[in-house]
């Protein structure tokens, strides 16, 4: 059964890619390609669910393919199945959405390439959680990176897209280098590069070696996940890509960074000393706060969503770090809870971030711009996109009754046991992490009040917004599908939690008891710290609103509703220029956090040539200091460039010099071999 589903998945994606390449110029070919992607996603979803529902772990081996490096080895365990389900959940609606969305590229860019790259990307992404040896993992990983690079470059006439692609490619290759180093470090003492052998070898290696492997893996996976300071590619690549690709990258691909960290850190290395957890918590909390702070300042709706992904990955890594830390401190119950919370938030974020990107793409498709200062009043012109974006915004702000709230509640609860630990450093760290998590929640609510409010409410601020039209059916189906997923994850909070709890317990080894989430109406966290009933919250809120409406209808006046102008102190008319802009909305927070932003403002006033009292135009430019680019990446790139220029001296052009280099290298190699005594 599982093997069949795997074959269907791979076959569907392959067929989809082939259909795109061969028939992509024709709507039928594109439909076939989408069907392939949806079928593949569905098969992956079924495959993952089957294993999560208690099916056996199965393996698949093809040792002859790439036999020199160890062959293809696939294995589906609970952790991999969870991420496979995540991929399928977002991929199916995104692929459907892509049908309508990619029509805007017809005639300008190659739709064949887009369809083929999408299918190959989804195939590679689905194979990463299945990989059971290093070569399969790295092949799938790099395939995922390259396919997504080509997807990011779809709109390559825009100059910023090419720049974004460069940053993205650079970061993925650097990450790959670190991953390669980590895996080779792990595999140095192992008989083969299968994960099973690596696990055994890691158990026997020294603390320093494991720490080094962990650090390398953290850099490699952290850059894919978007952890600060390795996040700089995210706000460039995600806005540049087509919206369904952004949804997939933000919803699915960066989660595989989290998957990698869990696989290498907990599964292969088996956990480590407390400093691993502390490092993850610090990086996670920092990413969360900085991500949302930068998201607040954005006027580009997709960049805001990209920075918000950095924030949410920070929250997930915070939970993962707590899991690592509690395991190191021999507290298996809280560790399992922390990991379960992080995994639940991963799934939730995939759902609502995918939804938000699809809705943002719908807005872009309708208005032609990503700049929120040009939007406005779209809630009436886009009657499907508006409520979908609102649902996503409420979910991502962590507000009841949606899924984001439940996973944030769990993240808070999972950090609380850490305050009771005897080590004061850990306790203080937990307190600070709690404070930063709470700050992130408040700031995220502000950021999404801005994103939804400025884009959808009030009057249209530009002609594009005034003439916006709703998206075609395929895009609407995609959005509604993910919206239903969000609601489903909220209603089904307890079963999903039971599943993530089982996955977490499986990761932590046989000593961990799975957090007991009784499938009743409410659950109690381990250590009895808290109780909450998702059903009560949802029913209470929805029922309460309905009840209030009925009571008010009965008690209130029978006079009909009257429509009138907005009250503006009696001014004659209202224009969109009187509304608040996105920049203005976040301005108080820009002032409050000016130490982080270091904002600069520039106001240029153009006067009428004949009189200084008549102003023709005012130009206002505001910018914030990009700390990481200015102080980390630019010096690094400058250093690399300098090194490259120095190395240029070696390229003399003389054949004799090059022959001398070859002979010299051989001599040194022979000398090393003689000294180390290798055969």
């Amino acid at each position: 059964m599982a093997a069949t589903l795997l074959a269907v998945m791979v076959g569907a994606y392959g067929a989809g890619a082939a259909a795109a390449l061969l028939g992509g110029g024709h709507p039928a070919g594109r439909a076939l390609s989408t069907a392939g992607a949806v079928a593949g996603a569905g098969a992956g979803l079924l495959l993952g669910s089957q294993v999560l529902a208690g099916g056996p772990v199965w393996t698949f081996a093809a040792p002859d393919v790439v036999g020199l490096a160890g062959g293809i080895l696939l294995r589906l365990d609970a952790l991999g199945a969870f991420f496979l389900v995540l991929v399928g959940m977002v991929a199916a609606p995104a692929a459907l959405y892509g049908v309508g969305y990619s029509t805007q590229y017809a005639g300008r860019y190659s739709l064949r390439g887009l369809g083929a790259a999408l299918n190959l990307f989804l195939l590679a992404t689905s194979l990463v959680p299945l990989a059971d040896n290093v070569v399969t993992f790295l092949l799938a990983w790099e395939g995922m990176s390259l396919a997504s690079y080509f997807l990011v470059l779809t709109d390559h006439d825009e100059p910023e897209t090419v720049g974004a692609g460069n940053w993205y490619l650079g970061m993925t290759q650097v990450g790959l280098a670190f991953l390669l180093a980590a895996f080779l470090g792990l595999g140095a003492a192992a008989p083969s590069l299968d994960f099973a052998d690596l696990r055994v070898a890691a158990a026997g290696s020294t603390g320093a070696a494991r720490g080094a492997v962990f650090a390398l893996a953290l850099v490699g996976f952290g850059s894919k996940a978007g952890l600060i300071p390795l996040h700089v590619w995210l706000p460039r690549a995600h806005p540049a890509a087509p919206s369904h690709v952004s949804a997939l990258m933000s919803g699915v691909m960066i989660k595989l960074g989290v998957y990698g960290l869990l696989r290498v850190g907990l599964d292969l290395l088996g956990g480590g000393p407390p400093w691993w957890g502390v490092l993850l918590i610090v990086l996670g909390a920092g990413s969360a706060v900085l991500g949302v702070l930068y998201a607040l300042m954005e006027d580009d709706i997709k960049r805001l969503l990209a920075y918000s992904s950095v924030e949410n990955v920070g929250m997930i890594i915070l939970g993962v770090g707590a899991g690592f830390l509690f395991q190191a401190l021999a507290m298996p119950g809280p560790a399992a809870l922390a990991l379960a919370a992080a995994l639940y938030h991963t799934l939730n974020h995939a759902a609502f971030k995918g939804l938000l990107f699809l809705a943002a793409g719908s807005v872009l498709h309708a208005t032609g711009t990503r700049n929120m200062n040009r939007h406005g009043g779209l809630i009436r012109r886009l009657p499907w996109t508006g409520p979908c974006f609102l649902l996503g915004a409420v979910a991502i702000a962590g507000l009841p009754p949606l899924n984001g709230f439940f996973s944030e509640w769990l993240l808070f609860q999972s950090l609380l046991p850490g305050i009771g630990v005897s080590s004061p450093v850990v306790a203080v760290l937990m307190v600070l992490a709690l404070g930063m998590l709470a700050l992130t929640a408040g700031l995220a609510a502000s950021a999404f009040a801005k994103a939804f409010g400025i884009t959808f409410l009030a009057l249209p601020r530009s002609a594009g917004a005034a003439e916006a039209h709703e998206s075609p059916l395929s895009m609407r189906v995609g959005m509604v599908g993910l919206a239903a997923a969000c609601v489903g994850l909220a209603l089904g909070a307890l079963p999903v939690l039971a599943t993530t709890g089982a996955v977490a317990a499986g990761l932590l080894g046989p000593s961990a008891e799975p957090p007991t989430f009784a499938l009743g109406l409410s659950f109690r966290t381990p250590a009895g710290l808290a109780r909450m009933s998702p059903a009560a919250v949802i029913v209470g809120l929805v029922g309460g609103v309905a009840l209030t409406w009925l009571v008010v209808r009965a008690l209130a006046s029978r006079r009909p509703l009257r429509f009138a102008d907005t009250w503006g102190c009696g001014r004659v008319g209202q224009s969109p220029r009187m509304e608040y802009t996105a920049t203005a909305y976040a301005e108080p927070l820009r002032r409050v956090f000016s130490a982080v932003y270091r904002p600069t403002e520039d106001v240029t006033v153009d006067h009428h040539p004949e009189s200084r009292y008549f102003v023709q135009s005012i130009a206002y430019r505001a910018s914030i200091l990009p700390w990481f680019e200015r102080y980390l990446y630019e010096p690094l790139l400058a250093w690399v460039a300098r090194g490259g220029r120095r190395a240029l001296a070696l390229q003399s052009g003389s054949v004799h010099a090059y022959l001398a280099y070859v002979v010299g290298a051989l001599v040194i190699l022979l000398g090393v071999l003689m000294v180390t005594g290798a055969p």
Partner: protein
Amino acid sequence: MSAASGYALALGQALLCLALAPGLIGLIRWLKARMQNRRGAPVWQPYLELRKLLAKETVVSTNASWLFRFAPYVVFTSTLGVVLLLPVLAVPLPLGAAGDLLVAVYLLLLGTFFLALAGLDPGSPFGGMGSSREMTVAALAEPTIAVAMFALALGAGSTNLGEIVARAMARPAEAVSPGYLLAFTALFIVTLAETGRLPVDNPATHLELTMIHEAMVLEYSGRYLALVEWAAALKLLVFFTLMANLFVPWGVAVQLGAGALLLATLTYVAKLAALAAVVAVFETRMAKLRLFRVPELLSVSFVLALLAITASFLSR
């Protein structure tokens, strides 16, 4: 307690709070009036105003969407939902299994979120300004509330509000411990900020450029205004109840006897009146802070909350 009596108690508490909330606002206004040497309106004036508002016509802006008409219900329901989770008259809480202090904090944030959106909807600059400022204050107050409440939860070993109250009643000496006192001060500052009282926001101002909460509701009329005003009164009641019953819990009933509940109601009203007097004195003595001084005030409260949780941790 049995399930049926538990639900009856929850319903009774909710109705009591709904009934008391406008009176609390009226009491504060009456006290301020007396401090200004004038008679002022009677304490039950807000009830008359709510009744009048329900009977008035509702006018809605042509620029506003369905969200404008939907938001007051969400704001009202979410605040009422918090009331259902509070230790008002008796512990253990009848609905304690439904939610704890974190659920309460996030329900309040839900109400703020929708009110902020409703402020943006009609497209007036005042609404946008109020919305932006309100979200700023709410975002900066979030960490303080969370950390201050966690300071209490740490001592009680649970984030369930009923258990925090029970623990405080069991160990009276804790009420004057540094952790509790610091947390109380932090929570008091946050109360003033979140409910829009002086020195953060003047509820009676007519100057739109100084408004935070009022600016968002300038467009509401009739039944929507009644809902929003009642929700604002309920929010003040919620914060007062937290301050009263978490920090000075004596009087809260531990069993469901008629005498115990009567005593609980009387002590509850007395505590609310005392807090109302404190707030009225603050509002009379202090002038409103400039908007960009409010983050400084909120960071002071955050530092106090951090000290509270450290003190709780050290004295465990």
